[in-house]
């Protein structure tokens, strides 16, 4: 019988990482954007490349590469700018504010030296105004780093499962 590779996880580590990701999701749902920036390392790379429909023969090119078009390709500075925008109280795409609910599942951890390579699935339900509903499903590939303050996000690649984004904007973080 075939088995797919799945290392037996250290339950304490699994619990720690999951609790970290849940806490992060809760913080974003509660619009704690400034605090959320504190969960990112100084050298964070936050990246959501665009995707395209490709024939199966060229499927390897489905996700845009590092120098290609992205929805997010941010560092801590530009993410801070985005948060400043929301805090200006003139960011109409979040005024009135959205209601969001993040669901984090399928958390898979691979220790890598002092860092952890963590994959997770994310579903963000967003409702705003009267009838605006966006549902974003995404895979996340994170690098979490242990610091004196606990786990921090050193890198996040978000694979949004849409080529044409079915929303009039993306005003949420993933």
């Amino acid at each position, binding site marked *: 019988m075939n088995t797919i590779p799945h290392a037996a996880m250290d339950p304490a580590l699994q619990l720690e990482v999951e609790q970290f990701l849940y806490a992060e999701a809760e913080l974003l749902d509660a619009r704690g954007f400034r605090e959320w920036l504190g969960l990112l390392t100084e050298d964070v790379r936050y990246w*959501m*490349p*665009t995707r*395209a*429909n*490709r*024939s199966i*023969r*060229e499927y390897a*090119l489905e996700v*845009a*590469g590092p*120098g*290609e*078009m*992205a*929805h*997010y*390709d*941010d560092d801590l500075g*530009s993410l801070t*700018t*985005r948060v*400043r*925008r*929301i805090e*200006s*109280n*003139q*960011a*109409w*795409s979040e005024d009135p504010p959205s209601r969001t609910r993040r669901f984090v599942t399928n958390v898979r951890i691979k220790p890598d030296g002092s860092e952890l390579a963590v994959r997770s699935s994310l579903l963000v339900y967003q409702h705003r*105004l009267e009838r*605006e509903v966006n549902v974003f499903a995404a895979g996340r590939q994170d690098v979490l780093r242990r610091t004196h303050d606990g786990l921090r996000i050193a890198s996040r690649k978000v694979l949004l499962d849409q*080529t*044409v*984004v*079915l*929303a*009039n*904007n*993306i*005003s949420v973080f993933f």
Partner: protein
Amino acid sequence: MIDLDEHVDLERGVMSRKVFVDDDIYRLELERIFSRSWLFLAHESQLPKSGSFVSTYMGEDPVIVVRRSDGSIGAVLNSCRHRGMKVCRADVGTTRAFRCSYHGWTYGLDGDLVSVPNMAEGYRNELDMSRWGLLRVPRVESYKGLIFGTWDAEAQPVEEALGDITFLLDTFLDRRPGGTEVIGGVQKWVMGGNWKLAAEQFASDMYHSFLLHASAWQALAPEGADLSEMVFPSVGSQMTSQGSGGGWFHDPTGAGSAVLGPVLAADFTDPAVWERLGEVKAGGPIGCHATVFPNFSFLGAFRVLRVWHPRGPHEMEVWSWTLVDKDQSPEIKDAWRRFASMTFGPTGTFEQDDGEIWTDLQRVSRGHIAQTVDLNYQMGIGHEVTDHPDYPGRINHVYSDNAARGFYERWLELMKTPLRPGQRGNATARAGQEVTR
């Protein structure tokens, strides 16, 4: 048939929002605007070699734009001549042929039908394959790297048809001798608003920028900047010609370059570029926002270009690229790419708020009573000049509805003019059209 003059009165500068919501008007646009205007298809850099293709749309019609074996660029309707299925379902790629996944009719890069399964048993070899190639877009021409197509075989050449808007396009496409390229990948998203809301805004509306986008101007200002001291420019011009138009401030290095940051500002105001374009263009038009009629727009200072694909009266699909000078260093190109997604596109600190406005505005426009209340397009009316010493077209203050009125003047003219008898797309004369391509 709907009386358009009843809803659009450009001499008085008033318009009914009926033009954004009415199904009959929308159908007429697909016929009289989109099936005879020159439409943006792709940038040449997206088709690097023979067999390279991109899928796009002309109005609601899917087309494939392809680099053919002889190096030329063509475009065909992405619909099999047998039962109408799409013959290409990838957004982009490289191929030797397009094979329909329904029954296997196969077409070459130029659209010729090259293979039909069961030709002998089924068609008894009686099918004249030369008559059943993919429908060709009869005219495909480039202007400085931008590929345009039209269904009107007798349209004037694209450069002539673009006309005065090349004055602005050149500040975008001809900054350096090597020309331009687009960064790989496209941002695509949908907005719940009529396509004209975006097209007219990019042509004409700098008026909205400092309120609607206040949060972005503030957030992108240099750290520690005293925002109360931030003065938004109020001197500038706006042109319109043949439905196309754009606006700019006379000091392109003002508020704009504060948000660009030092590296991109230095590239934007590079003396070599300034010299190549000349004082007139570099002293304002280089930072323009503009629309090439009907649905192609660009932002000079943000290096962004996009198409507003119509998707019924109530929705548009936006496709957005970043354009860079081919001669520029990889670092600067990459900085423009990142700046573009920081400012425009679905996550853009500017554009998020446009999506918000157009969606809500569209919803209000569904109201029966709302449709009886005229919208105001009167800003600057009667103060246009057509003999500006520096600028072509009809010129007004940057804060005016000059180019919006120009956009709808052209729109109205085309909407009231039936296609020529026999012209592809002429709905009233369809029966008389030949079945061949």
